[in-house]
Every structure is written in C-alpha cells, then in structure tokens.
C-alpha cells in the first residue's frame, strides 16, 4: 500500500450500481420509444410521399385540358403536345399506349425517340397511332354549329357545306416526321413524313396538297378542299387578302390593292420558270383558267362569231410556302394575233385568278402561255 492511498476520494454509495442500472433501463426504454416514434413518423412520411407521388403521377398521366392559349405540355414521359388556342384534349397514359382523345382544335404531337409505348390519338372517329420519333399535327373540325357566323360567310361565298358550319366531324392529320397509321372503320391508312390525310364520315384518305401542308390545313380548317388552293376569282376581297398574305410573308412592300402589275417584292428573287413542271402549269391552267377563259371567248363570240386567233399571256407567279401562290401580274403579248381588247382583258383578268403552289425556291416565277381560240376547237399550249 502506498502512502498516496491516504488520499481517499471516497467511494460510491451502496446502491450506486442499482441506480445506474435503473437509469440505463429507463434510457433504453426512452430510446426504443423514440425509435418507434421515428419509425412511425418515417412510415407516415414515406406514406405521404408515396401518396403525393402517386397523386402527382396521376395528374400527369391522366387529365383534360382546354387550351386558353398556346400550351406546351407533356403526356406522360414519352410524348408532348403543343395545343393551339381552344384545343380540347383528354389524355390517359396507360401501360400499352399514351391515349389522347382530341375533341377540337389543333394540336402538334411529339413522341420521344425510344418511347416504349405508342401515342394513340382519337380524332373525329379515327385513331391515329404514332411511335417513337414521330411528329404529327392533328386538327379537329368540330361539327357543332359555329356561333361566329363563319359558316354563313362561307355559304355566302358559295364555298361548301350545309345549313350549319360543318355537317360532320372531320380531322386533318399531317405527319411531319416519322410515320402514323390512321384507322377508321376497319380500314387503315399509313401516312409518312410530309404527307397529310383527312378523316371524316367517308373514311380516311390521303391528301396531296398542291402547295404546302400548312396551306392545306388552313383550307381544311375553313371547310375548303385541302388539296386545292382557294379560287379567289369570284371574291376579289378574298383574293386581295391572299395576295396581301403572300406579300407579307415575302416581307415585301405593301402594294396598292387591286394592282395586278405591281412590282414584285424587293426581297423576293426571280425563280426559274423551270422550277415548275410544265405539266403542272398546264394542269392548273386547264383546271382554274379554262372555265373562265372559255366563258370569255363564248361571250366574245356573241359579238364576233368569227373571232379566232392566238393570245399570248405572260404571267408572274408569286407565293410563299406557308400561304400559297397566286398570279401577281398578267399581260397580253403584243404578238398576239387575236386582237380583241375586251377578250384580251377578260383573259388577262381570268389568268389573274389562277392559284398555284409557290415557286419551289421562293420569289417569283414568270410564265408565257399561248392560247389558240377557234370557234371550232379550243385549247392552248404552254410555252414557258
């Protein structure tokens, strides 16, 4: 024993071990209770997160939207849609497909490359199916009567339809990238990039637009034949509006209305006439000009029954890809052998009514077209 042991610090109380053991036990119980509380809270939090996640996913995967402006939104994880103002869709992302029902308006769909399920859009009774990488546009023409009187205005122009705006629901489908399959009534139509189709009560049919898909869609939306540009000859106001749109699209200077010989837009550049296939020009002239030209000649024959000869018409086609093409200038060549001023002016004016697709490379294109008039036979040949 060391003398340092004289320094006695004292010892623990007799029940020290028991008190410490009791405290340890109480601490363990508190600890276990706390752990249970934390576990319960964690489970509750996880449950809340699960419910919230389910709710968010549910909102994303199913819903309905009427666009109050241009809206870009996702449809599940693999598709997106840009809605035009007023477009109305319902969507439901299912295991086997992203299902959309488009009630009205226009919508541009995109399907992500590598999408696991296809996009299936139901519009006007048809089902449009597109797979990964596809881009397509769907426009539904509602059969409901129009409140804005647009239908009546079209009736006034002698354009289409019946007592109300549109007799039947119809949809315009344009495939921008990839492919889409349109099924309706047991038949299927496969549409590729750059192609369009119309679906109505008669089924689905492919549309070959003479100008652009945008123009075809615009014609479809107003009830016109999407394949053929409007014939504005019977409505000068419509023709002027179209002309203004073309010029605006070409960013050219404003021209005075009704100026058939106005200068072409400054920013436009002349296109080679060979941009157009001769057969295309001939077809368009036969289709759009000939009925009017014949009428001009028949009217002229009433005054001069032996009137005959050649009238050479020079005309200039201007256009924009998004709007279409029109004849902006038309003139009668002095070498024409048929010298009747009234007939020549009628022919010139009639030529001004013909619509074409815009010059493929933009700008304008000039065409020279001779017509041979004879009381015994009609016809003409192009001489571009």
């Amino acid at each position, binding site marked *: 024993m*060391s*003398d*340092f042991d*004289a320094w006695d610090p004292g*010892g623990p109380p007799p029940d*020290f071990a028991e008190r*410490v*053991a009791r*405290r340890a036990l109480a601490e363990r119980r508190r600890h276990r209770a706390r752990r249970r509380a934390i576990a319960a809270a964690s489970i509750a939090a996880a449950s809340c997160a699960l419910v919230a996640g389910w709710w968010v996913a549910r909102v994303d995967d199913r819903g309905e939207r009427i666009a109050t402006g241009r809206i870009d939104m996702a449809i599940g994880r693999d598709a997106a849609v840009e809605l035009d103002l007023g477009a109305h869709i319902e969507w439901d992302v299912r295991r086997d497909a992203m299902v959309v029902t488009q009630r009205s308006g226009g919508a541009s769909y995109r399907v992500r490359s590598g999408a696991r399920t296809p996009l299936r859009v139901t519009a006007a009774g048809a089902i449009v199916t597109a797979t990964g990488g596809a881009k397509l546009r769907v426009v539904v023409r509602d059969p409901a009567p129009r409140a804005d009187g647009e239908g009546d205005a079209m009736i006034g122009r002698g354009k289409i339809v019946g007592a109300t705006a549109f007799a039947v629901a119809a949809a315009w489908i344009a495939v921008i990238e990839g492919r889409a399959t349109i099924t309706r009534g047991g038949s299927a139509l496969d549409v590729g990039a750059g192609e369009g189709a119309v679906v109505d009560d008669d089924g689905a049919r492919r549309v070959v637009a003479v100008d652009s898909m945008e123009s075809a869609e615009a014609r479809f939306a107003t009830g016109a034949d999407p394949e053929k540009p409007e014939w504005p000859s019977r409505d000068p106001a419509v023709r002027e509006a179209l002309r203004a749109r073309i010029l605006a699209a070409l960013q050219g200077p404003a021209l005075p209305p009704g100026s058939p010989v106005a200068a072409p837009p400054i920013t436009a550049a002349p296109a080679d006439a060979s941009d157009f296939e001769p057969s295309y020009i001939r077809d368009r002239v036969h289709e759009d000009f000939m009925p009017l030209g014949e009428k001009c000649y028949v009217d002229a024959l009433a005054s001069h029954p032996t009137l005959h000869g050649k009238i050479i018409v020079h005309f200039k086609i201007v256009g924009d890809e998004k709007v279409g093409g029109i004849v902006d200038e038309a003139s009668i060549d002095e070498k024409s052998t048929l010298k009747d001023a009234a007939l020549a002016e009628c022919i010139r004016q009639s030529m001004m009514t013909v619509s074409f697709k815009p010059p493929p490379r933009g700008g304008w294109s000039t065409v020279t077209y001779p017509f041979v008039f004879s009381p015994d036979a009609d016809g003409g040949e192009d001489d571009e």
Partner: protein
Amino acid sequence: MIAFAMDGACPPARTDAAKELPRDVLVRCVAGDVDAFRDFVARYERPVYALLGRMLGGGADVEDLAQEVFLRAFRALPAFDVDGGARPSTWLLTIATRLALDVRKRRRPPLAAMDRAARDVAADAADPEATSFRAELGRAIARAADELPDEQRAAWILAEFHDLTTQEIARILDVPEATAKTRVFRAREKMRARLAHLRGDGT
C-alpha cells in the same frame, strides 16, 4: 516519517485478469442484459469513482459524473469487442478520464481550489479531534495534486492509483507514449517537491 513510492517511471503493468469482469457477464452486457450491466457497474464503480474523485477533488457532481460514465458505457457496450484485447476497466477509465478533463476545462480552477481549501478548513474546524495524521496527509496530497496541470494530474493518477502502463495512459489521453511518460515523470517530480516537507528529509 513517511515514504512515498514515487521512484521509477511507472509501476509494472497490471496483468491480473481476475480483476476484470468474467467474460460471460461481459458478453451479456454487450447483448444489452441490464442485470449483467448492474454487475458491470458494481465491478467497476470503485475505480471509476476514485478516478473522478481524484481528478475533480470530490463533491456531489462526482456521483453524477460517475453515473454519466456508466451510461455512456452502456450506450457504447454493443460495439465493445469482447475478444478485442481491450480491458473493460481501461476502456471505462478512458471514458472517465476524458469526461473529467472536460469538466475541469469548464471549471474555473482558482474558484475550485478556493472551494476545496474552504472545505478543508471547515472540516478541520468542525471536528478538530477527527483530524488525524493520515487525513492530513491525504489533504496534503490532494492539494499538491490539485496544483498539477490537468494532463499531468490525469497521467499521474492513472499511473499511481490505477496501475496502468505508460502505453495504456498514452492511449487513454490520446497522446504519444513518450508524452505520457514525460507527464507522469514531471508530475511525480512536482509531487515530490510539494510533499517534501512531509518526508522529513528536506529534499
């Protein structure tokens, strides 16, 4: 005339395994058995209490700290490696020493010293008859030890009263072994000098 066993760097390492808790009880402690833990406390309460008492100079807070030491041990026991070679006693003294050093750091030494001096005087005045030579010796040692720097005091107490080796002291104080050895040596030198008047040799 008294003689303090202050020669030599450190006492030999204590290897008496019998003083440790039986292995099976320790295993039950690690498993969370409260009854075994009670035995664990009963086995080690005296050295822990003594260490804290000497480090802190006694007082009511020693019991609180002793309980805190064992509760910390109780929380840490599930991670104790029964076969890892560490002695439970050394492990407990490590916890107690670090806790005591922490408390001393927070204390204001001058006041603590004054309190103890006042208690000593009061004790003497209250029961002068009880004042024995051994009690006086104990107080003298306590006063001398109280003047040691905390780290030297801890090293010296562990060496002198708990028979720990320099290596064990170094591990408890988390310092190199040489540092622990130096601290023990310097503490002994100081204690020798401060208690010289009790040795009667004037050295």
